């Protein structure tokens, strides 16, 4: 993929960004436009179906897979500001529709052109230009992005191009933060204990900013950090890359 490839890109904004933090969606639009993409936001989008998939409601998850495949198959690329939602489309739609002769190939085709946004921008060779953020940040590798999509180096390469940003290591950066989608409210006591250890590690990193690529994990970690009285502020990585880290962090009045 070269930088001058004109692409008709669909932004799948995710249900969480839509309802909780639209800034992430606008940051995505800004970065993708800067990367030379013609971005469309399909108006019929709601959710990838992951809550049904992980709750065991396979029939509903499969129905969402069909609807989203039909909605997204006309674009050159589908870009998602979340590793777990991108992973659902890339890894699970083909599996959900594998036995459906009408849909299997279509699901594979959509999966093959669905990208988590940081991986997409990195693969296009895009780097933030003239973005300055004098701060110390640490990065949490969200599990689905890391293990389903192999996202590890890409966000660090992109963040390396932000002037003034010092990225410091996070002990246990690949350890789950305890969010787990509906897990965090189905088993709150376990989730809370896991989040506590993650927050302690973030505090110990000495960073003033916590960055990641998934809003659910970020809300969990930031919410725990705030409950503990920590001063660490949290942003989605795309907000930093789009030069929008001067606005409210997660939990600050938007």
């Amino acid at each position, binding site marked *: 993929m070269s930088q001058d490839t004109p692409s008709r890109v669909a932004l799948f904004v995710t249900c969480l960004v*839509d309802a909780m933090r639209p800034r992430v*969606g606008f940051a995505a639009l800004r970065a993708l436009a800067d990367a030379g993409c013609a971005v469309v936001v399909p108006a019929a*989008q709601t959710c990838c179906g992951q809550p049904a998939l992980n*709750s*065991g409601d*396979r029939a509903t998850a499969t129905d969402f897979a069909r609807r989203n495949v039909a909605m997204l198959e006309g674009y050159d690329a589908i870009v998602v500001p979340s590793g777990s939602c991108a992973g659902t489309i890339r890894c699970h739609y083909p599996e959900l529709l594998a036995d459906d002769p009408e849909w299997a190939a279509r699901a594979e085709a959509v999966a093959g052109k669905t990208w988590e946004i940081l991986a997409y921008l990195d693969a296009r060779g895009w780097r933030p230009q003239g973005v300055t953020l004098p701060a110390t940040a640490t990065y949490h590798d969200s599990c689905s992005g890391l293990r389903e999509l192999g996202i590890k180096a890409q966000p660090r390469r992109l963040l390396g191009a932000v002037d003034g940003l010092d990225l410091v290591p996070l002990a246990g950066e690949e350890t*789950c933060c305890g969010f787990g989608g509906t897990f965090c409210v189905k088993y709150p006591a376990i*989730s809370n204990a896991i989040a506590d250890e993650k927050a302690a590690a973030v505090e110990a990193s000495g960073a003033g900013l916590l960055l990641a690529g998934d809003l659910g994990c970020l*809300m969990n970690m930031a919410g725990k950090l705030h409950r503990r009285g920590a001063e660490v502020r949290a942003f989605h990585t795309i907000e930093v890359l789009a030069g929008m880290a001067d606005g409210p962090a997660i939990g600050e009045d938007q």
Partner: protein
Amino acid sequence: MSRAFDARVDAALADRQLKIAVERTAGTAEAKRGAAIGAWPSFGAARERAAAIKDHVIANLGSYLVQFEASATASGATVHWAETADEACAIVVDICRKAGARSVARSKSMLGEEIGLPHALEAAGIGRVETDLAEHIIQLAGERPSHIIWPAMHKTREQVSALFHARHREPHVEESIVAMAASARRQLRGEMLGADVGISGANFLIADSGQVCTVTNEGNAELSLVPPRVHIVTAGIEKLVPSMDHAVHLLRLLARSATGAALTQYTTFYAGPKRAGDRDGPEEMHIVLVDNGRSAMRDEGLAEMLRCIRCGACMNHCVVFRQIGGHAYGGTYPGPMGSVLTPALDGLAANRDLPNACTMNGKCQEVCPVAIPLPTLLRGWREKSWREGLEPVTLRKGLGLWAWAARRPWVYRTGVRWAIRTMRLAGRGWIAKLPLAGGWTGGRDFPAPAAESFMDRYRKGER
């Protein structure tokens, strides 16, 4: 979640000693495994071969079982077949009775725990001395194993020291690991050597030679094998491998994945009873091959689980296990592999929490030396639980309502607007208490949403 699981989790989370004990052992294991695998560049290829070996055996289990029976019999062992846990225990107890056994020396075996052998021996009035130090500890404490490699992982050494002081005839004076081990040795050595029957499990059963392979770090399997007159091996039928070459390949993965060591301290291969001219060894050798649901697992979508070589890496690396320890799972096997196995062994209805109490982070699959797709298998149980109506009605109704709306973008947008307004009534920045979201706000603050959704703002032209 179910009340029973809920109560076990709460008790575990409240137990600071448990947290210290689990973190010491699992943390060390994680670090050592990481170093060992990091120093093994071809680990990826090795685990693919390991998975292929196990898959091949599982797909051809019948013929390998027949081959093993023939070669083990030729070596002088007697092979028994048990379809259920009860049958397996009855066979073992019967052999013990025929041998006139008053006591057995037992070497740690998770299969033995799975079939309830300690209880069956007790019910038959047969004394049991545990040769594995950790099994001895939990026998003294009247507990069950909390980990498949370290049965007493849930206890700190300080707790073990107190237990030995209370229960050993000549407890240690100096507070050191060496002195505590000596205390256990004084307590156990005579009983071990005086046992009439020895019982062990198997790490591998080798089809072409009829050999049994055991690995231990204490040499205790050998103490259940050599001194007693009769030896009994109980093993799950998935323990088969075609030849010693295959066993050796799997051993390389087993030790590194479990403890980070290149090899366990003791790795023993043996076949049949003492032969004419042998200096020592049991006069009788019995091998009890146990199905206990394994054939059904193979045929009902859990064939990949039968690859498991019981290394414990999945639980050592599991964020949930690291918080709640092994006993909270309630089954014989804890952690991710236990959450797949226990519903198969003990029923899904009573254990539906196990596959659900998982964040699906995929770490267990990443570290598994035989590449078992544990998250996929756990999701399979969730799907079965959903199909069978075992999931709570509130979840089913809530998810149903959400799915109904999310199929209708206009309805969905209206719902999102309503939800945003409701959440913002509770606060504009960090929300410390959110009605109906106590699960979240009990331990974390909740960030209030922006005033308007992305889709609404985008529709109005904002970019």
